[in-house]
């Protein structure tokens, strides 16, 4: 307060609140990096820089645009000093063309790091920090400009929201609730500051009627408006915060999004690296429909998206594919590799539609496809038979295409006697990284010890993985990837070991297969659809799955299912053929076809038990129905909330009135709220009697219509309902007595129930006197709720002995 002519508080407080809000919002980005302090620290400096500069400049009434420019310049200077090599900038501080170029390079590296690393970015990706800090600082400048410069605090919510959308759409778990709450709190404070300031310019208090405004003469008190501002501001903002807390939410994603197939509002699924994206989509808070399918196929399971044919020690991924233009997804396809003509095949037609929410550069198809018609430039690979976008920005979202595929049913015999794979298949598909831990091959040997054919070994591996004594399916407890160390953890018995989900099962089995010389790869796609109608199915995000495919000459690539029965109940028919399935724990047993059902049994049982833990459980039509019901309930809740709140207000009001005085005031409040609900208007500045007279003027008859009454319109006014008019007189007398009579202990007013009965008579009469439309609005959207009294926001009426020095000021005293 060194310079009294400047109202520092009014200048500094919004700036600081804006800065704090921005910084709180930036906490939401903490999930991007492993060490959030690295960007939050500098970001704090940046937002403070913006706030201090803004405060100083605005305190001398600098135009908003100039403030903006200066803030940006200061940021540039600070950024240059902080991040750009000293020799590039002038004096280490002032940006030069060289330093700008350096900064551009720096930011480019940051962008690269953002693409290269998966969140959370490890310390090696530290180049990302300048990018984060700069983005955060720019948001801070924007928020400061909007909220403090232009005084449009609500608009400042947009950049803040943008800050939140990034982690919500990228990170697995979205934003922790407290991070959002902090930002929201800051934003509310910002709004409140803004509203209090704006409202002071509005003029009359909220409830002044139009006539009173016209009759007004002298200047009106600004003080009383402050309380209105507080009331409106706090009510609105509190409702905004509290309402979402009461409304049931779906899953743990912070920002609720629209229904299935939402319009890019966080409910979309993007698949670019199938294996990496897999878990994220499986654990996402809510399911999203991704692909719908129309086919006569009774069991359209295992819809492939992509084939991962190389393993680099970190993950399985699709190898680089060089696809010639003639392999466009339009027309007939060649025979799949390795499949003999004698293997029985059934052709089935499919019509597939990719939902808008599914952002994919691969086309989901069954295997193998014989012919396809897909709009756009999609090409297929002759080895893997997966379909990939050949154009940079082409996306499968919203695409519809039809195809014919066949279901093969190779018998166990075909697989058993399958010859050696051709060199072109064998070499690439048995390649293993040099640093592959020995655990993989050792275990593979151990499990398949003593078995002759590759087919038997494959089946043994599958059985080993699926044996509930060996492995447990759990989406959350196991490793989160399929890198070397993840697989070692997964394969080694122990507290953390032998637990995982399809990614580890598929990756391990494929690698073990390769170590045994069986050409293997991993397919990513959908497991099992929900039936939504005759020959119609839908695959959703929770149906995403990975499984190994192995090559047997004669049968081609066939899939196996190592994932336990809790997740994938069925195994391919050819893996339960008439050969021995050696179980390490059980030892060899008699061979024969009768063995098969028993072998199958554990899996079948798992199906029943696993149903409850299966993330897709409750899916299908039941799930859709559940969603519909939930959304319906939500809507119903929203629709009913105002009148429920109104009823609660009324109940609490009456329950809180114990003395005659409180009853009278409660009754008067109730009348006022009803008048506001019915949009009759209410003027707190006139006397109780005058208000009551206005009120009685809208009374309508409540009794049944008399036979002689004209049908068209019933009259309103005190004479229309003398009973209610008398009730109102009694209430008025109670209120006056409560307010103005001597405060004597001995004075006993009317019983609360009597007052209530009178008030109810009056409210009925008011409803009867209102137009039908008004009545409806009053019931469904009671206007009285937007007043602050509900939240008891008015300060207690502890008045000082100060006497009015200006007309009308006492209202605000």
């Amino acid at each position, binding site marked *: 307060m060194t310079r009294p002519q400047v109202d520092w508080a009014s200048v500094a407080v919004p700036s600081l609140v804006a800065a704090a809000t921005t910084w709180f919002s930036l906490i939401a980005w903490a999930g991007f990096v492993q060490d959030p302090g690295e960007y939050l620290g500098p970001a704090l400096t940046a937002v403070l820089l913006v706030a201090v500069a803004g405060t100083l400049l605005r305190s001398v009434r600098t135009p908003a645009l100039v403030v903006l420019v200066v803030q940006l310049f200061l940021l540039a200077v600070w950024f240059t000093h902080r991040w750009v090599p000293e020799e590039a900038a002038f004096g280490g501080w002032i940006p030069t063309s060289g330093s700008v170029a350096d900064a551009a390079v720096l930011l480019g590296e940051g962008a690269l790091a953002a693409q290269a690393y998966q969140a959370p970015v490890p310390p090696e990706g530290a180049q990302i920090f300048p990018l984060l800090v700069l983005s955060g600082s720019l948001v801070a400048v924007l928020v400061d400009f909007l909220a403090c410069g232009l005084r449009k605090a609500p608009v400042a919510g947009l950049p803040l929201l943008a800050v939140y959308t990034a982690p919500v759409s990228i990170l697995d778990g979205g934003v922790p609730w407290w991070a959002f709450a902090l930002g929201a709190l800051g934003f509310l404070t910002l709004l409140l500051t803004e509203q209090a300031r704006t409202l002071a310019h509005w003029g009359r208090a909220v409830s002044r009627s139009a006539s*009173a405004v016209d*009759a*007004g*003469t*002298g200047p009106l008190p600004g003080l009383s408006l402050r309380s209105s501002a507080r009331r409106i501001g706090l009510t609105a903002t509190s409702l905004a915060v509290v309402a979402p807390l009461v409304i049931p939410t779906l899953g743990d994603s912070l920002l609720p999004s629209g229904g299935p197939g939402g319009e890019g509002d966080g409910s979309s699924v993007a698949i670019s690296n199938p294996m990496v994206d897999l878990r994220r989509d499986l654990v996402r808070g809510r399911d999203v429909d991704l692909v719908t399918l129309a086919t006569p196929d009774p069991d359209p399971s295992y819809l492939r998206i992509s084939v991962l044919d190389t393993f680099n020690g970190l993950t399985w991924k699709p190898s680089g594919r060089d696809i010639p233009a003639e392999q466009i997804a339009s027309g007939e396809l060649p025979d799949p590799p390795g499949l003999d003509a004698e293997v029985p095949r059934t052709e089935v037609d499919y019509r597939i539609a990719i939902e808008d929410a599914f952002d994919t550069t691969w086309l989901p198809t069954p295997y193998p496809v014989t012919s396809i018609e897909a709009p756009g430039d999609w090409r297929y690979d002759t080895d893997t038979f997966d379909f990939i976008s050949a154009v940079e920005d082409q996306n499968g979202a919203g695409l519809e295409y039809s195809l014919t595929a066949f279901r093969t049913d190779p018998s166990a015999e075909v697989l058993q006697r399958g010859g050696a794979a051709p060199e072109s298949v064998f070499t690439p598909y048995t390649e293993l990284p040099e640093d592959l831990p020995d655990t993989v091959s050792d275990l593979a040997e151990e499990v398949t010890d003593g078995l002759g054919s590759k087919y038997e070994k494959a089946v043994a591996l599958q059985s080993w993985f699926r044996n509930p004594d060996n492995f447990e399916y759990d989406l959350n407890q196991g490793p989160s990837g399929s890198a070397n160390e993840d697989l070692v953890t997964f394969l080694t018995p122990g507290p953390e070991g032998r637990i995982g989900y399809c990614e580890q099962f598929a990756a391990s089995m494929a690698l073990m297969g390769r170590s045994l010389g069986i050409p293997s790869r991993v397919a990513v796609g959908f497991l099992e659809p929900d039936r939504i109608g005759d020959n119609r199915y839908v695959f959703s995000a929770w149906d995403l799955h990975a499984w190994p495919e192995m090559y047997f000459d004669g049968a081609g690539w066939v899939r196996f299912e190592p994932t336990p029965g809790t997740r994938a109940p069925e195994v391919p028919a050819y893996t339960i053929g008439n050969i021995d399935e050696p179980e390490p724990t059980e030892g060899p047993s008699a061979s024969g076809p009768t063995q098969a059902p028993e072998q199958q049994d554990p899996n079948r049982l798992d199906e029943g038990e696993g149903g409850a833990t299966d993330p897709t459980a409750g899916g299908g039509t039941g799930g859709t129905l559940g969603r519909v019901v939930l959304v319906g309930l939500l809507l119903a809740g929203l629709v009913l909330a105002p009148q429920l709140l109104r009823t609660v207000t009324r109940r609490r009001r009456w329950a809180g009135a114990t003395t005659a*005085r409180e009853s009278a*005031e409660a009754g008067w409040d109730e009348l006022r709220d009803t008048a506001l609900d019915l949009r009759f208007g209410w003027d*707190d*500045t*006139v*006397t*109780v*009697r*005058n208000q*009551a*007279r206005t009120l*009685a*003027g809208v009374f309508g008859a409540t009794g049944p219509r008399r036979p002689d009454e004209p049908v068209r319109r019933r009259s309103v006014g*005190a004479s229309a309902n003398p009973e209610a*008019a008398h009730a*109102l*007189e009694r209430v*008025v*007398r109670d209120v*006056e*007595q*409560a*307010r*103005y*009579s*001597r*405060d*004597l202990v*001995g*004075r*006993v007013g009317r019983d609360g129930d009597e007052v209530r009965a009178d008030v109810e008579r009056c409210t009925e009469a008011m409803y009867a006197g209102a137009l039908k439309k008004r009545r409806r609005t009053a019931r469904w959207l009671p206007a009285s709720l937007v007043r602050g009294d509900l939240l008891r926001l008015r300060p*207690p*009426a*502890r*008045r000082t002995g100060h*006497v*009015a*020095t*200006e*007309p*009308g*000021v*006492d*209202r605000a*005293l």
Partner: protein
Amino acid sequence: MSSVSDGVHTGNRAESADLDTLARVTGRIRESIEKVIEGKPDVTRASLVVLLAEGHLLIEDVPGVGKTMLSKTLARSIDCSVRRIQFTPDLLPSDVTGVSVFNQDTRAFEFRPGGIFANIVVGDEINRASPKTQSALLECMEERQVTVDGSTYHLDQPFMVIATQNPIEMEGTYALPEAQRDRFMARVSMGYPVEAAEIAMLSSHTRRNPLEDLEPVTDAVEIRKLIDIVNDVYVAETVQRYAVAITTATRRSAELVLGASPRATLHLVRAAKASAAIDGRDYVIPDDVLNLAPQVLAHRLLPTVEASMSGRTTDVALGQILSAVPMPESRRRG
């Protein structure tokens, strides 16, 4: 008060009996007055309020609307001393206050009381007297005593002056100075009677003077009691603040060159108390203040030249002020 009537309050205070008495007596007086003055309940009530609030009443209107009749009727309804002074330009102050005359027999000066020595004094056409005489009267009104030749004579209680005057634009009048008008608690205008009341008047007043049939319905002693009851009426702090807010607003109005005095505030609250008691309440509500404000305040206010040039009377200005001054926050907590 079409829908909200002032029913008799049924509080359980000891005063409720007093309030009943008050209501009964005022009811009788009102009936009595209405036998003579038809169709003027507002004016009747105002005169009762002023009587019980120990004030003085100024009745202002054109000739022939019943000003004198009203004052005489009120005076006649109460069994107390009544004097009537007809003010003329040649009326002397001593005619009002009284004069000391030398008594030849006792060889001493003895005081002959003037017209002011009565419970109710009807000052007819007060603005026809010279300012000197007017001020003599107004002094007595305020002080409730007369000082002649060094001796002070107290006036009886109740003491009420009912003055009538023609509007100042009539010829041959001396307008009352503002400072002196301030001493009247209220000013009322009779106004022309409504048609029905005028017809009723023709039938009742043409046969014989109804005033002559009028019997007193109460006496000075009872009126004194009633005044005591009125003094006991409670005025909540919020109502006091409201009254102050109104008078303060008149002082700040751009339309008025002279606002209401603190005495006006006092008169306003006292009148409100009387009004509340007449309505059977032992507490004042803001409506009492609001409804009485025009009668109590309007004659004390002086419009600015601009306002009067453009035809905006003090009544209009006051009406605006009254609608703009909000009720004090009156809710009690706890």
